[in-house]
Every structure is written in C-alpha cells, then in structure tokens.
C-alpha cells in the first residue's frame, strides 16, 4: 500500500470514529433563560449562583442565560411567543404575565406547587400569580419603593434629607444646576415602561389612586395634584434618560435623588469610590409607601416533558428556604417567603430591615383590574405617551389626564 493511500485510509478511519463518537456522546440539554437581570448588580450574582448550583445538581443540563434590556424585554418575549419560539425558562415582570397567560402561552403550575410549601409560606402578594383560578407562575419579589439620595449633594445645597414630598421638591430645586451638570432628581424621561411606575409612585405616594373600584380615576383632583408635583420634580431631571441611565447618573454623582426598587442597593455597593460613601437609602418621603410585585418565573405552555421537569426543578429551587435567603442577601430585596432571614441576620443587615419595612407597608401602585392586566403592555404604552406630554409640554395636567382617560376607556374599556 503506498503512502498516499495509507494516509487517506487513516483519515477516513479518524473521521468515522469522530462521527460515531459524537453521536455516541449523550447531548447536553440546554435550557434557555433570557432575563433583563443577568447583568444587574445583585440579581445577576444571584442568577449566576443559582444556575451553577442547578447545573451541579443536574449533570448534562446547561442553562444558557442571556441579557435583554428591560425597555425591549416584554416586546422581545412577545415576538418569541408569537413565533412559537418561547424560551424554556420564562422570566417576566409580574405586571405583564397576565397578558401572556391570557394568550394561553403559560403553563398552569398548580400540580407542581401542590408538592411545595409555597402557598403556606409565601406572602399574600403571591396571590397575584392566580388567574382564572389557576396559578401561572412563582413570584420572585414583591417590594416597597425606596428612596436613594446623595447626602453630600444635599449637604452642599444646605438641604436636609427630605421627609415629605414638599421637602423633596424644595431639595430638588436647591440642588439642581443644569449648566454644572447637577440634577436634583432622576427619573425615566424617555419612552420607557417605567414612566408609568414613576407617575404611579407619586400618585400612590400622595395617597391618591389611578383606579377607583374598577374604573379609571385619572381626573380625580388628588391625582392631578400628585401629578403636578411629579411634573415639578421631573423638570429638574436629565431629559431623554431611561431608568437604567438615571440610575447610572445617580451612581456617578450627577443626580442627587432617585426613587427605585430595593435592588438598586446592590448596585450602589459597586458605585465608583468617589461617590459610594455618599449614596444612601431611606424610606420614600411620601405619606404612603408605593410598591407592588416585581417579577416572577413561569413555564411556557408548550414544552417537551423532559424539559418541563427540568424547568420546574429550576423554579422549585428558587422557592426553597436556602435560595430565598440567598436571594435577599444578594439582591438586598425582600424575598416572597415569609421570614426568609432570621432575626440575627436582619439585625446584622439594617438595610434589609428597612427594605422589609417598606415591603410590609407598601400600597400597590400597579393596576389590579383584570382587563387592564390582560392588556398591560397596551395600557403602559398609552399611559407613557401621555407621560411624555406631562414631561415635555406645558398643557394643564387636567387636560392631558382627561384625554388619557378617554383614550384608555376606548382602547381598554372597563365596565
């Protein structure tokens, strides 16, 4: 046999062995898990640790996590579900899950939950996972809004930490110097879903409500007064910013005060050295603490049985006492399991005590009407359009809210 023929024969044998070997290896199962929290301080670490522990407990299973920006998150997931290509593990802002469930896209989890202690040990907020008598997800977090401030910027402007909304407006005006790149307040000021959360925070914080019974209440004088205060505050916020950008400017020492969820405390720990010592967290300077449910995990309705079991195992892992405790410690946010931390742990972390206090006192700022929740994405988009008019025009608040109520009643009628 000549050398060329030998080499060709040997290469053929190697190729055949490689192909057979590849087929003989059991293929790793990959579960896809997109989220807006993958790169978030605190929550990102939690998911990384959880995924590592899950993969260690399930050899041959890999979780492919991917970051999707929050602004596009719900739209992107909607496109995926519509194209019959949902992710394996579905992470949703809780305010949006009903719209997905109403399309038949999510699997009911009652059978699985019956094997856990979730119903007995989770807070009442977890009841939001029930739609048409079935549970469609597991709550990851319910929270009260927190107030973040830069005590040095306030001190430089000779202002105390505000305790009421009027003191807050005074402090905002005193700190703001646009030409020096210094802003008293930070808020989402572009077309971002959190514009509704911002306005809802001011309305709920002032003791008013955007809903009365099962009706829109946008033109109530108390709502108008609260929104006028919001408009005054947001005049001193950088324009055209998303929530994430406003948060970053706060970390960089350009914004003196923002309202945000308790999860930002984890990001504050990673703020630049020059600003970190001055960044503090406190209770919202409002009469009533706004809050609500944040996010939840779900299973797509169409999933093959093998993946279904694995996805449930992943979700169930988050509900265990061990991972509920880690959730609170890593994200600085309240876990939905009651008493996730011991009294000693709470004493060692006064920031968590504050966060739990806010969560316990929180009044829900999100709509509770099923019709609105089934169409939350549409509701938020229409609301945000009017939010932009509130922020960028001089039209009277009452006129804008009257038009908004009429538009909302036309698009999402409430009986």
């Amino acid at each position, binding site marked *: 046999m000549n050398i060329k023929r030998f080499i060709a024969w040997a290469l053929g044998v190697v190729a055949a062995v490689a192909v057979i070997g590849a087929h003989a290896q059991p293929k790793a199962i990959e579960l896809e898990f997109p989220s807006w929290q993958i790169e978030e301080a605190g929550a990102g670490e939690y998911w990384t640790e959880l995924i590592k522990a899950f993969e260690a407990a399930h050899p041959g299973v890999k979780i492919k996590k991917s970051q999707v920006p929050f602004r596009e998150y719900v739209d992107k997931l909607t496109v995926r579900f519509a*194209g019959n290509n949902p992710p394996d593990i579905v992470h949703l802002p809780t305010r949006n899950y009903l*719209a997905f469930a109403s399309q038949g896209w999510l699997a009911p989890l009652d059978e699985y939950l019956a094997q856990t202690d979730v119903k007995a040990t989770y807070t009442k907020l977890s009841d939001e996972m029930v739609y048409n008598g079935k549970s469609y997800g597991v709550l990851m977090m319910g929270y009260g809004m927190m107030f973040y401030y830069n005590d040095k910027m306030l001190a430089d402007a000779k202002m105390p930490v505000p305790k009421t909304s009027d003191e807050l407006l005074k402090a905002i005006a005193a700190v703001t110097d646009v030409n020096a790149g210094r802003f008293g307040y930070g808020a989402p000021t*572009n*077309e971002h879903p959190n514009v509704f959360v911002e306005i809802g925070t001011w309305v709920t914080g002032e003791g008013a409500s955007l809903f009365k019974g099962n009706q829109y209440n946008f033109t109530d004088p108390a709502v108008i007064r609260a929104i006028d205060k919001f408009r005054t505050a947001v005049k001193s916020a*950088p324009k*055209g910013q998303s929530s994430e950008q406003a948060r970053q400017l706060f970390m960089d020492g350009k914004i003196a005060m923002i309202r945000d969820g308790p999860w930002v405390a984890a990001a504050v720990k990673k703020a630049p050295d020059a600003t970190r010592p001055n960044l503090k967290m406190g209770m919202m300077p409002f009469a009533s603490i706004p809050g609500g449910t944040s996010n939840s995990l779900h299973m797509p309705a169409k999933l093959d049985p093998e993946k279904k079991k694995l996805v449930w195992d992943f979700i169930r892992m988050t509900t265990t006492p061990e991972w509920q405790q880690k959730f609170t410690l890593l994200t600085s946010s309240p876990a939905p399991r009651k008493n996730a931390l011991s009294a000693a742990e709470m004493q060692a972390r006064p920031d968590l005590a504050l966060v739990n206090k806010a969560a316990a006192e929180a009044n829900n700022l999100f709509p509770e009407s099923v019709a609105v929740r089934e169409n939350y994405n549409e509701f938020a988009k229409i609301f945000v359009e009017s939010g932009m008019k509130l922020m*960028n025009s001089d039209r009277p608040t009452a006129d804008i809210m009257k038009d908004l109520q009429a538009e909302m009643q036309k698009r999402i009628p409430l009986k």
Partner: protein
Amino acid sequence: MASRSAVPSPGRGSLARRERIFAYALLAPAVAAVFALIAYPMYLIFSMSFREGKSLNFLALHTRPFGLGNYEAVLTDSATWHSVWVSFAYTFGTILPAFLLGLGTAVVLNRSFPLRRWLRSLVLLPWAVPGVMVSIVFLWLFDASFGVTNYFLRSLGLISTDISWYTNESTALIAVIVPTLWKGYPFFTLTLLAAMQSIPGNLYEAAEVDGASAWQRFTNITWPGIRGQATLALVLNGLWVFREFDIIYAATGGGPSKTTETLGIRAYNEAFGYFYMGRAAVIGVLMLAIALVAVLLARKQLRKEFF
C-alpha cells in the same frame, strides 16, 4: 409532390413542446422562489388583515372571525393618517436632503485631487453602519443633558437652554431624520458618481471651449447624463426609507406621543404591543398600496430613461 410546409412534421412539433417544457423547467426554481418569498407572505398578510380580534397565536389565527372590522378600525382611526403623514414627512425629509448631499459629494469626488480614492472610501462608510448603531451614536450626540450638539449650540450662543431632541415633540422627527440622512446619502453618492463617470470628458472640454459656466455644464451635460440613475436612486431610496424601522425604533420607539410613529412602527406596536395582528396586517397592506402608487408614478420617467 406534396409541399413541405403544408403538413408539419411530427418530429418538429414534439421538439417545440420539449423545448417549451425545458424552458418552464428552467424557470421553475425562480417561480418557486418568487412564490415562497413574495407571493405567499403577501397572501398571508392579506389573509391576516381580515381576521378580527386580538390574538398573537398564529396557529389559531384562522379561527378568528373573518370580516372587514380591521379595515374599518384602522382606516377610520386618525392615528393611522397621522402615521401616514409622519411617514411622508420622514421619507421626503430624508431623501431630498440626502439626494442633494449625495449629488454634491459626487460632483466633488468626480474631480481629480490628492487622496481622492481615500476620501471616496470614507464617504461611503456611513452606509455600512447598522441602523441600530447609527441610532446609538446619534442618541449620544443629541443627548439633552450631556450631548455635544447642545454643547456646541450653547457655545455658539444659538440656544440658552438644552434641547431635548428625542423627547420634544417639535424636534423628535428631525432627530431621527438626521441619522437616516447620514446613513443614506452615500448610496446617492455612489450611484450618481458612477453615472457621472460614464459621461465622456470631451463634452465638458467642448463646453468649456464654448464658454459655458459651471452651472450650464451641470444643467446641460451632467444632469441629463445622470437623470435616469438619479430617478432610480430616488425611487429605491424612497422605498427603503419609507419602510425604515430600526433607526426610529432604537431612538424613539415611535414617540414622543407618536411624533415619530411611522406606519412601520405603528404596525409593530399594533402587532407586538397590543396583540392586534389583523390591524398590523392592514397597515402592511396600506404601506404596500402607497409603495405601489409611488412606483406607478415613477414608472413613466423610468421607462423614458431605461426602456
């Protein structure tokens, strides 16, 4: 003796038939591609436009009620005609300045000067940048608080307070037109430069000898030589800009308050924001109709130039 032409030979008839079959067989892949990529999706859009109600479950769309409700809802909605106006303003606001800029740069690049080849490559670069990246760059340039545009305008004394380019209803459309123009003008430069280079140089020499001014040379030699390509470039670029999505969506999402909500953005919002697939399909049909009218209007000029 019977005439040869009176009776056709059986062999010749079957040869013609075989040739016809062979010709159709060669055309078949192209026809299949047109059907799969153009005709079938268009059929789906039309079919979807008659399915009423809210649903994003494509597999169950055929179970939705069939009717003209979507057409009524969309065509009687003032927001639809507002989007039509925004689409026209965006399209003409982009392609006319882009054409003029492209023509100007083509005229300059048609001359001989040092580093001309490098400059040609540089001028074409914006065309290669993805739309989303263009949006990100211009979001930063036009940032209300920290952007360089406001900084320069304030430094020159042209403004006293920062302009919120992307969140102000009076400036948002301009703020999305500028990046589209920046990305789009190189196409005109490329097309018009290629057309200019096919014009014989001796025509210009003769005109110069006859004492023609630069403007006269342009109107009597350059423009007639590039008119056909210019018309085609305007039609093509106009259609591309009309259906533009990524630059606007990445920058404003159609806001603030729908001031940049073109028909394409509106269709996306109806489908994936509000779950009205049927209404989104009607907007698609409307866009198709507008594009068809534009092509028919340009057809006469294109036929004159090319056929």
